[in-house]
């Protein structure tokens, strides 16, 4: 039985850990804090801009990878990406993620822009921005992360990606989540909406302002533990309802993160949250162990293989000092660095070269020297640490993360089974 240490509990780390544990590996998942999935929109992006808006992401991948050599998608083909997206759907279930990875949805954002994404929560899909759609966007006076007039007016003035226009108007309601609280964050509403009694009151107030033929756009706070809360609201209101993701704390991201974390525990993954990996030992070209700085001092985690899924600059996995010396925080891995200056002054211009910095891998996701050989024979990388992607501009983050996690896990399992066969033969 292979022992694997996965570092980082974002979507890449969680997916890799679950896949490995389900295949029989003994997996420890080490993470210094809650992963980035909780801050996500609760959707799965594969490719949204290449750089033009993408309608069919899997079809676009091969051309995109060819035009962007060194992009993580060069190692992750459309078949794998589609399979990985389906795998994530299977892990979290249809109550949290639906859609066809081959086709992008066009969904409204909290500023009324239209964002392409491949998979979304079922509570969001009625918000698809198609010609002739008729929306009423409802805000809550006590929830100050969502301005319905901004959303409605921006949506109504936009030429839709598929052509045509939609109509949208806005309503602001006075509906406190808790008595006496004038400023509630999204999760407070989501918790309140888990309660059927509050849900009924909430639905009544909304029903009173919905017109004939309108779909109701609401901030994404429609229940957190009760994944059917939005559907019941829709029934009570008597109109289609859709959630629009908010700035953090993102309730749809939280739902996904909780579901995947629970799934990891159910698969027998040993979760060790709250401590940082601060060192490692290697010998003979392999990583032997990592050091975890727990409250009582360093603890050693030895394993046969390691998955580095620590994220990018935003997660502290990569850093750059004022001289633009670059550093990977756990293994001090060699990083791929674009030619020339890492940062340019044109804020609205091309992507900053800095964001393409990251770890390069071979086709099995083994971390390698840029353009060269693997650094260690058992250290794999997945997700935001990978070089070559500007994930938030391309809308490619989760697609890269999930596909690279699946590939890294499958490579580890394949290597372990080869080792077992060879062991048996000798």
């Amino acid at each position, binding site marked *: 039985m292979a022992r694997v240490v996965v570092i980082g509990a974002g979507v890449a780390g969680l997916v890799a850990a679950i896949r490995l544990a389900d295949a029989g590996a003994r997996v420890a998942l080490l993470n210094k804090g809650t992963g*980035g999935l*909780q801050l996500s929109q609760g959707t799965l992006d594969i490719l949204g801009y290449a750089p033009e808006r993408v309608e069919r992401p899997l079809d676009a991948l091969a051309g995109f990878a060819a035009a962007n050599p060194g992009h993580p998608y060069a190692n992750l083909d459309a078949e794998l990406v589609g399979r990985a997206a389906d795998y994530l759907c299977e892990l979290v279930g249809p109550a949290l993620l639906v859609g066809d990875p081959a086709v992008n949805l066009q969904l409204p954002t909290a500023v009324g822009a239209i964002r392409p994404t491949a998979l979304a929560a079922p509570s969001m899909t009625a918000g698809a921005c198609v010609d002739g759609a008729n929306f009423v966007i409802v805000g809550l006076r006590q929830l100050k992360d969502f301005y319905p007039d901004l959303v409605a007016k921006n949506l109504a003035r936009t030429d839709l990606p598929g052509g045509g226009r939609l109509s949208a108007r806005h309503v602001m309601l006075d509906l406190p989540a808790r008595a006496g609280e004038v400023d509630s964050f999204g999760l407070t509403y989501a918790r309140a909406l888990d309660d059927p009694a509050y849900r009924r009151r909430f639905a009544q107030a909304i029903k009173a302002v919905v017109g004939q033929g309108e779909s109701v756009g609401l901030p994404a706070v429609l229940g957190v533990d009760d994944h059917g809360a939005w559907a019941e609201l829709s029934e009570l209101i008597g109109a289609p309802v859709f959630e629009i993701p908010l700035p953090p704390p993102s309730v749809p991201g939280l739902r996904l993160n909780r579901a995947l974390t629970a799934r990891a525990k159910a698969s027998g993954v040993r*979760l*060790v949250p709250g401590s940082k990996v601060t060192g490692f030992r290697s010998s003979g070209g392999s990583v032997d162990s990592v050091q975890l700085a727990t*409250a*009582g001092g360093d603890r050693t985690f030895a394993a046969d293989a390691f998955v580095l899924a620590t994220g990018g600059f935003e997660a502290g996995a990569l850093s750059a000092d004022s001289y633009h010396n670059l550093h990977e925080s756990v293994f001090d891995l060699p990083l791929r660095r674009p030619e020339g200056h890492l940062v340019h002054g044109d804020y609205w211009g091309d992507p900053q070269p800095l964001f393409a910095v990251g770890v390069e891998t071979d086709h099995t996701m083994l971390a390698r020297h840029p353009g060269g050989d693997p650094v260690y024979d058992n250290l794999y990388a997945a997700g935001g640490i990978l070089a070559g992607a500007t994930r938030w501009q391309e809308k490619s983050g989760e697609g890269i993360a999930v596909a690279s996690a699946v590939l890294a896990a499958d490579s580890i399992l394949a290597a372990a089974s080869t080792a077992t066969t060879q062991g048996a033969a000798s």
Partner: protein
Amino acid sequence: MNAAEGLDFAQTEVARASLDHCVKCTICETHCPVSAVTPKFTGPKFVGPQAERFRHGESVDHSLDYCSSCGACTLACPQGVKIAELNSQARAVMKADHMPLRDQLISQTTLMGMAMTPVAPLANAALSIKPLRNVVERVLGIHRDAPMPKANTQTITGWLKKRKKPTVKATRGTLIFFHGCAGGYFEVETSKKSIEVLEHLGYEVLVPKQGCCGLAQQSNGLFDGATQKVLKLCDELRASGRDLTIISSSGSCTGMLKHEAHEIMGVDDSRLADVGTRIRDIMEFLLELYDADELPTDFKPVPLTAVYHAPCQLKSQGMGQPAMEILGLIPGVEAIESGATCCGIAGTYGLKKEKYEIAQAVGKPLFDKVKDVNPSFAMCDTETCRWQIRKGSGAEVEHPIFLVHQAYGLS
């Protein structure tokens, strides 16, 4: 170094240095068990890294007092901000000139045990007299329904003196056992079973005379007393051996020695650093043995399905939930993780008149889960949490070492 210097050191060197790492992602807010149930506490980010910028020798946001110091925020922070520590320090400053008598009294845990043990039946009876508890609530501000420990007629020291010596020969070396005040006076059975399991594994177990770790005083902002206590304890534990591993079955006291005394009060003393890195929670120790293939797993089946709750102050040590791993090795045991961040009591927080209802609301999903899974038995590693869960659920709640003890055929 006195407590004021310690606090200054902790604030400037440990906690405040982490402040600028806050990116306002609100992850901590989503993990806070207190702000989830009451609007009286605005949450760790607002009270912590945000309010800290407005503090200059005084605390401007008094909702800070409603923080229970469970540490869930610091544990969840992906940027390494010491949120709970900042809040504990600011609260100590805020309360410094008007420390309630109540908070000074309830943090004297050793005193309580010493006073109650000789008159245990009487003390237990007194604590169950409603009118008396009403008076205590009015005069002292300790809630009439707050969970209280049950005094034992025998302390751990008393048991050690009278018991038969272990039959298994010590072949694996010597350990020091730290039982904590509650494990010395109230939860004596946990200490006994821990010692017996360690001896069964082949260790010689030394139990030095030991005082309190000062955790209750620390969490009430009484840093002077807490600092003296924790350093005295370090001396006592070190007197038994300078290189021996120290084992404890008191989850929260272990956390005080491992990191809280240093990170919250700024105790920057080599004796604490020594003890804090030599100490292991007993389940953590067993898991380390297992990982090294040194734990006998000849466990007898124990047919039991029950909730296991990892206390907040155990989780905040950043080692995961070792008890879940060990319980998983015992045939027949199905331990269901509580999924609760905190049971609500948070040391002495849930005893206080003005916080009792909040503590009960924090604990309610946990109590419900215990009632649902197995209403007669549940497991938890820390004493005050067990009192809270016993009171809230009606179940017998014991340290997970009870099951290990039973599975090794020791009970």
